[in-house]
């Protein structure tokens, strides 16, 4: 099998960016959860922080569009429109960080409440995104040549494209959260806990939504894939995710309190509200995509057979 090095490099870059943004997103969700429960209005105080996470997620989405364009026209449009929006937002947010520090809302460049280096780290991130945005704009207006590119034309209708984009975007946010939890857990796990084996199954399951995105990007979106190949891949994915889900559910049945002991940090909103919804959401997020992919591949195969018989 011939390996497309450029495509692989793009995918690896996108995956690394996804991991970085996922870690930001977990803390962002925690911050919003606290905001909802507090009478102290921190909207103004936290606005630059919240905006920076939104911009980072938007940047991730734009990078995806840039790395996997449908055609040259759309690529140029993406560069121009999204480049301008990204530049405006990241510049505004960087400016807000500077003003918040200058006016004492943030007590110094390293006030330290979100991370040890906050807000300096996010200010630098905004400046980096601003740099990329300027680069996108220059490319969009052909100040920098596009060069030879591979394109990924969309094969289905407009309605499916719109619905698909909406649900993929929403699902990507869920995958971002659980992926962030997956990597965060390496640092915050309750090592030495008697229920470590339950946490191991939870941890593996947390990696599934992000892993499925990787499967989609690395394997499914390869234009040379056959329907049989997609059927096989989705069946394998479903087998793996359902097995992990089963192990997770067994762990929950055997050690009914292990989430409380070992994983409260991952499901903060659940525990703030005394809900127990995140495990269900995780189970759904891990199994629904491969199930849909499998059913879709099966129906396409059936369609092909039917059309062949006529």
């Amino acid at each position, binding site marked *: 099998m011939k390996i497309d090095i450029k495509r692989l490099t793009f995918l690896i870059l996108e995956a690394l960016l996804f991991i970085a943004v996922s870690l930001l997103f977990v803390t962002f969700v925690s911050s919003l959860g606290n905001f909802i429960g507090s009478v102290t209005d*921190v909207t103004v105080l936290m606005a630059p922080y919240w905006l920076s996470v939104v911009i980072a997620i938007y940047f991730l989405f734009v990078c995806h569009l840039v790395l996997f364009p449908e055609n040259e026209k759309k690529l140029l449009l993406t560069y121009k429109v999204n480049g301008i929006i990204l530049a405006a937002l990241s510049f505004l947010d960087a400016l807000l960080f500077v003003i918040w520090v200058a006016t004492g809302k943030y007590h110094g460049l390293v*006030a*330290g*409440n979100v991370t040890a280096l906050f807000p300096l780290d996010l200010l630098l991130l905004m400046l980096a995104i601003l740099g990329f945005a300027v680069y996108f704009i220059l490319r969009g207006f052909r100040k920098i040549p596009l060069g030879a590119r591979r394109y990924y034309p969309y094969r289905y209708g407009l309605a499916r494209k719109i619905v698909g984009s909406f649900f993929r975007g929403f699902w990507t946010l869920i995958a971002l959260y659980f992926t962030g939890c997956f990597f965060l857990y390496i640092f915050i796990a309750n090592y030495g806990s008697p229920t470590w084996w339950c946490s191991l199954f939870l941890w593996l399951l947390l990696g599934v939504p992000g892993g499925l995105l990787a499967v989609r990007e690395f394997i499914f979106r390869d234009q040379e894939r056959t329907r049989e190949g997609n059927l096989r891949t989705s069946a394998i994915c479903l087998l793996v995710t359902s097995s992990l889900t089963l192990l997770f559910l067994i762990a929950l049945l055997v050690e009914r309190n292990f989430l409380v002991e070992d994983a409260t940090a991952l499901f903060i909103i659940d525990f703030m509200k005394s809900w*127990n919804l995140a495990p269900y959401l995780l189970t759904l997020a891990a199994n629904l995509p491969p199930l849909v992919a499998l059913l879709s591949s099966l129906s396409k195969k059936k369609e092909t057979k039917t059309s062949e018989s006529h």
Partner: protein
Amino acid sequence: MAIARYFERNGKDELVFHEGYKVLQLTDIHWSVNTDMVAQGAYLTRVVEAADPDFIMITGDSLLGATTSTGTQLLNIIESWKVPYAVTWGNHDREGEYSPAWLTQLWSKGQYSYYNEVDDNVFGRSNYVVPLVDGTTRKAVWNLYSLDSNSYPASDSGLYYDYDVIHDDQVAWFNQAATASATANGAVVPGLAFFHIPLFQWFYGYVDEQKNNTEPLIGEVLETSYLSIAPEEIVDLYESAGLTKEDIKVWAGYKDTGLFDAGVANGVKGFFCGHDHSNDWGDVYTDPAGSAFIGYGVKTGTELYYSYSDKRQVDMIGGSLLTLHSDESYNIDHIFVPVDETAPVVHDTEDVVL
């Protein structure tokens, strides 16, 4: 397991009791990634300055949705007061971007910290005793008990969590510790018990008052919502008193494990919790085992919701100061410290008579 380990001070000096020894309860500080740590740190310092305590007991939910950076800065503020302190865990303290071991280490490492987490099989983490000793005899005059009221039990419904309780083995541990203290000191040592989530006795005490239309010794219940997942026996109790489910404004753990009875039998004169942000209610509660004060601490800071008391015309934030006497009595001072530095500090003080 040598019970003496629960009385260890990790190299710190013994705390010497004197007449009018002041213990300040701070609770539900709730620092998170959203916290303006300079402003909130200054507020906490003002509460401590208003109370001028000899010892500080922090009864849980110090952090919620925090990072290691937030936790470290909170510790730095607490240490800056140069007052000995101890910490109990609340149900939310575990909910942050750190491991439980990291938080244990944080509370243990302070120069003024008397936090003592013994590596044992007793449920929970912050189960330990801080004795206040006589300067001459070195015998304990008062015991300050810290108990971990834990967080949430396994979800029976699968959809929501109840609040956890002080487990049976913790009550057994408490009995052992109190007995050991009595043996070592030649008499039952009066004590105060600190934890985060209220006990069933808060349900009982509050329903008695509702039923009899009497005033509590101190404070109010101003929670606006009710405990929709209250245990059936509590719903029955309220209904038998002519009240409804909607009157249950106490968020206690899901069952009574007997700490109150074990406590009063072993000299505990008061039980203090945090948890319900809009309640600072407290009263003397009596059952066949004996009498003791049960009550909420005033919530510390503005990081989560709290109430305004029309009766006392204050935001219900600040701290609760307990002044201990040699005759085993004490008084309670709910200190309300306004966010506005120019506004006066309000005190609500009562003697506890058992």
